[in-house]
């Protein structure tokens, strides 16, 4: 601890706080999954005509209020709308059908409109396809790092790379858990982005250290 500068110490303490808070949040509330990935309910309404998402959005805002809503067009003619949200009560369904009839001149009946349950996608199912590519890429990168920066100490280089990559990802997920950023389609691109940035950062740092080391060796010689 004596060797740590004040700046490093502050970063370590802050990181620990964020990580612990993230772990608590995940244990208590879990991640905030995107509507697409969570359990919900859906209705499909045949409008007989093409429609604008924004018009449907206005209606769903009135009917579902603050509830997150996903609007999708169905089939090639795009004249059927699928509305997915966390839950749909009978009252909301009646209201929705009435407003859709008013807007599109349809004669839909609430009793004919079925509320379908939407199963949730498990976090592990989202991650599963990415485990193998990430593992293979990381292993190759570690081998490369070990060779390229062996003058900086092979084990030290490998451990630093693993540690920093893990650290940034843990931080990312902790922040996502604390800030309740939804886990969904944008999560993986974000994970990849952070991973790449970390690797570029590590390489830049190692290159600098390698240049210094080479200079040092040159001077000694």
């Amino acid at each position, binding site marked *: 601890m004596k060797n740590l500068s004040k700046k490093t110490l502050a970063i370590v303490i802050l990181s620990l706080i964020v990580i612990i808070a993230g772990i608590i949040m995940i244990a208590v509330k879990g991640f905030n999954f995107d509507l697409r990935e969570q359990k919900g309910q859906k209705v499909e309404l045949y409008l007989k005509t093409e429609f604008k998402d924004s018009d449907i959005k206005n209606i769903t805002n009135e009917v579902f209020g603050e509830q997150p809503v996903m609007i999708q067009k169905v089939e090639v003619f795009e004249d059927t709308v699928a509305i997915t949200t966390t839950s749909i009560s009978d009252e909301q369904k009646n209201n929705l059908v009435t407003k859709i009839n008013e807007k599109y001149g349809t004669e839909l009946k609430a009793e004919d409109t079925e509320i379908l349950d939407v199963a949730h996608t498990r976090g592990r199912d989202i991650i599963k*396809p990415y485990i193998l590519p990430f593992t*293979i890429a990381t292993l190759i990168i570690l081998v490369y790092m070990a060779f390229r920066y062996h003058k900086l100490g092979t084990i030290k280089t490998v451990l630093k790379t693993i540690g920093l990559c893990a650290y940034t990802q843990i931080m990312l997920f902790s922040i996502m858990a604390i800030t309740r950023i939804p886990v969904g389609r944008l999560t993986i691109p974000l994970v990849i982005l952070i991973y790449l940035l970390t690797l570029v950062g590590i390489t830049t740092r190692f290159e600098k250290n390698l240049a210094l080391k080479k200079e040092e060796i040159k001077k000694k010689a």
Partner: protein
Amino acid sequence: MKKVKILTIILLVVLITMIGAFGIYFKVQNRMENKLKEYAYSMDLNGGRNVRLKVNTESKDVIKDSEGKEVETDEELTDEQLAEKGYTKESVPNNSQDVLNLDNYEKAKKIIEDRLKEQNVEEYEVALNDETGEITVQIPENSNTDSIVSNLNTVGKFEILDSETKEVLMDNNDIKKAQVMYGAGSSTSSGTSVYLSIQFTKDGAKKLEEISTNYAKKDDTDTNTTSGENTTTENTTNTQTEENTTNSTENTTNTTEDTSATSEEETTQKQITMKIDDEEIMTTSFDEPIRTGTLQLTVGSNSTDADTLQGYMKSASSMASILTCGNMPVQYDIEQNEYILSDIGTEFLQYIKLAIIILMAIGIIILVIKYRANGLLAGLTMAGFAGLYTILLKYTNVTLSLQGIAGIIISLVLNYILINMLLSKIKNGEGKTEKEKVNKAITDSYKEFFIKIIPICIIAVVFALINWMPISSFGMTMFWGIVLIAVYDFVITSSILKIKADK
């Protein structure tokens, strides 16, 4: 001359940028048509086929004899006839209460995922409702989708039975894997045959050897059978199954197609019946014991027509995936099968495009402020890079996903970093002449830049080779981005800066 050269390159760059951004239009039947290929989009941007599989709640009537044994009969028996024979009719649910549990639902989900993998579906989402057992599958919409969907709820029960006693001799547990093969047809006809090769486990192979010995053909000449208009000769059978799959065994079995077929030794000849999902595929006996542990069934007939063969291949590959992945513990019905577009519409992509253009414009302005004329020239080439990158991605069949878009953005940022590095080294570099300074800056920048992004190159190559659309999309966009950065900046950006420095 120097100005002409620079102007020519700038015009070329502007042309590429325009083509990349707006396309190339030609008059086709009194209307202008963009001849530039469109992007291919993945499921998260294009939507996909949504299939809801509901647990089957129907029952089937089963006729049992006085001993409680199941009786198979083709004719419809009236209640009187049943009573006369001492049979009873029972209504048995397709899914008994014992199988309707979370464990089996999970198994069914896993089998569906395995089948999709086996059929090389590059992107899918499978969600399970733990309470009802309902499974929702989302797969990309393409020419194979219907055939894949038709196999989702196939139970995949495989059985080899004694054709008379109905004793089950082999089942799914004996199968190791099934695969599709093709090769030259029989010696008497030209064309290609498609085979479904079923490889058995160690125990299964032993069983198969035993069965093929016990159920061996008694006499070649006697077992040639005649059935109506068809004459089934050695080693062939034509039993139609769903999806036009026609099966026969190759070199190892001799088959009778019609139960009404007559044969001298029919009474003594022991035969096996192969069933998939309780549907009879074939009834056959064996020429010789099979010791390889592999059974080859021809799918369809010999053909030289590519489309026909393609059809057979599809059928065989569906069957192979079903047999390889095992049978579903729960019977499902397809409740809903529809194409649902993504909630991320084209509007979203337009926003992304606009955001990239704005950020690039800001980037170019920064370059101009920092490096003046060199910044302006390099900035223009950056726009050309974006245009060429767009065209390249369209013609290298890269499927765009959200990850792919992230790859494009990262590549554009990397290109900006290299150009910035290059201009900075030219500005602050040392050299006797301006040209020398530029040359040194180019060499140093390339070296420094590519050493730093080696890990990114590794990721791009590994991800590009993965058979999972979202990740391969990222890998492919990154791979082509990095290749283009290396080539384009060397050929265009460096050249224009060299020409400018040349006095």
